């Protein structure tokens, strides 16, 4: 038994068995590449069929439309990489907006109080989703479907009980409204074009999420809990905390979008939001996030949202019948999922 450690030669800088991949090939291995190609194709397509589509004003509108999906897609993408998904996001956005407006209106308080309370509620909804999931070990589909139904009922019921109508009362004349509107729902002029604040919030969220995902411990854990929760637990990753945290991150994104919805119009319809959760999931899936978890990127979700925004507005600019929009969306989803499947098979392929 030798005790001395054999001195190892320093690892060679380049391994001759590795074919040097050019940047293009490296790009091809990224999760969002399918979506990127799709986005470029779609952009070129709409640009060629419609003159208005590439005009700055129209493009700002496309970006705005994309951002309202994209802000949520950031959280939903992270959650999906973490191996779960959330069906309550669409109505949770409205719950957040209703909380802020009803609370400030009923107690005649500064709207910022309502905004902060809405943040607490949104994070709370995320926490409850995650906590029930971890406690019961039920599939996230069931748990969040239940939350979705309950929130839908609460939105309608409480709004009627407190405000006496189906929409929240207008809060446009209340203290702090203008300031809050300036933060969540105003626009900035760039080169003569109004770009909505949500676009910048969206980009900032994507940047933060990407950094967290790729360059922090927590990011490593997110990939791990989605890829194999048991393996992650066995090496000491706090699986429960990570998953609950992800649901809360989705809650945070829901709060941001909820505040935008509220301050863009000063009132919220209590029955809104149903069905939107699928748009966020679609954006994440088109962007290369694997439904089974463990693979994907925040940038992918953003590209997915951008594709959604382009298709949504592009059809209008091309002066087509918008009835066809859902068909294209379904087709894109199918193609994207097939691409993802191929990616996963390739990654799983063991050499024996």
């Amino acid at each position, binding site marked *: 038994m030798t005790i001395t450690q054999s001195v190892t030669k320093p690892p060679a800088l380049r391994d001759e068995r590795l074919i040097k991949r050019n940047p293009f090939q490296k790009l091809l291995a990224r999760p969002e590449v399918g979506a990127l190609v799709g986005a470029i194709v779609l952009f070129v397509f709409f640009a060629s069929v419609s003159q208005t589509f590439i005009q700055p004003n129209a493009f700002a509108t496309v970006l705005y439309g994309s951002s309202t999906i994209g802000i949520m897609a950031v959280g939903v993408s992270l959650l999906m990489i973490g191996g779960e998904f959330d069906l309550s996001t669409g109505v949770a956005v409205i719950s957040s907006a209703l909380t802020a407006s009803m609370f400030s209106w009923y107690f005649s308080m500064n709207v910022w109080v309502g905004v902060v309370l809405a943040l607490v509620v949104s994070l709370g909804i995320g926490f409850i989703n995650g906590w029930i999931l971890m406690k019961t070990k039920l599939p996230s589909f069931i748990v969040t479907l239940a939350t979705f139904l309950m929130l839908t009922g609460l939105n309608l019921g409480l709004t009627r009980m407190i405000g006496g109508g189906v929409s929240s009362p207008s809060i446009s004349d209340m203290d702090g409204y203008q300031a809050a509107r300036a933060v969540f729902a105003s626009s900035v002029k760039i080169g003569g074009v109004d770009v909505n604040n949500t676009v910048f919030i969206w980009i900032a969220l994507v940047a933060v999420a990407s950094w967290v995902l790729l360059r922090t*411990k927590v990011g*490593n854990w997110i*990939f791990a809990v989605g890829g194999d929760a048991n*393996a992650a637990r*066995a*090496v*000491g*990753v706090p699986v429960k905390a990570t998953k609950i945290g992800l649901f809360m991150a989705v809650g945070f994104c829901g709060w941001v979008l909820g505040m935008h919805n509220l301050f863009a119009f000063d009132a919220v319809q209590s029955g809104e939001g149903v069905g939107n959760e699928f748009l966020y999931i679609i954006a994440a899936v088109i962007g290369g996030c694997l439904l089974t978890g463990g693979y994907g990127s925040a940038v992918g979700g953003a590209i997915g949202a951008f594709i959604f925004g382009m298709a949504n507005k592009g059809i209008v600019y091309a002066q087509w019948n918008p009835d066809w929009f859902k068909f294209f969306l379904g087709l894109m989803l199918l193609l994207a999922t097939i691409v993802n499947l191929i990616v996963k098979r390739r990654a*799983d392929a063991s*050499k024996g």
Partner: protein
Amino acid sequence: MSANQIDQQQLLKDEKDPLTHTPVHLLSLESVGKHYGSIVALTDVTMAVDNGRVTCVLGDNGAGKSTLIKIIAGLHQHDEGVLKVMGEERKFSSPRDALDVGIATVYQDLAVVPLMPIWRNFFLGSELTTGFGPFKKLDVQTMKDVTKKELADMGIDLRDVEQPIGQLSGGERQCVAIARAVYFGAKVLILDEPTAALGVKQSGVVLRYILQARDRGLGVIFITHNPHHAFPVGDRFLLLKRGKSIGYYDKKDITLDELTAQMAGGAELAELAHELEQLGGHGDVVKEVQAEVAHTSESLKEDSPRHV
């Protein structure tokens, strides 16, 4: 190389005969038992693990091997008996607890996340970071370099630590898992059936890594149902059957044949031979099994192995 591993090397040098002369065992179990509700999974198991020694746990499917390692690894708690680490009584409430005292487990399914790069898997749960506060980020370059170096030390020359670990072969993945445990200062390394899903050559490779881990001064618990894998590397052998210990031997007190016989059980082998004959099994096979029966019952009669 972390400091506590050097300590272990030092400890090893001073030892005269670690099997009998260590003041305390690195890890020891005394009459440990476990039941799940009304099902008794394990009763009265006694074993010990020391620095630089390999303790093999042998048993067929359902013998209680998994329950035993789950207790040591902190996934389950024992109901009876005493588990001691360096002579101190312990009961682990989570895998983290066990890891903190230096007990690392390489599971059958390896506890790796197939879609993640090798270096991310290597450091999963114990990531290196640089920077402060909210700007604390992963030290990616160091982690990649360490992964490459540690694996090279174990004799695995990897092409690219950036490739998903799912693309490695079973043996290579096993080695990454072992190298990971060694690097993070494991004192006791539990290997759960590392050779079960591997071919002959790959198994040989993994057995070599077990010896390498041993030579680095780790106490190794090697779980297997294959005496041919256990015997060449083991220093002690614990045989389990239906949740009970049916033998605990030093290597010098037992031969491979005896070990095999104990594992299979002479009577059961005879029964199998009979059954094969009745089924009209191939003549040669039946003869072979009968020969084995005769051989093992003989060697058992000659000198029944002494219990440790």
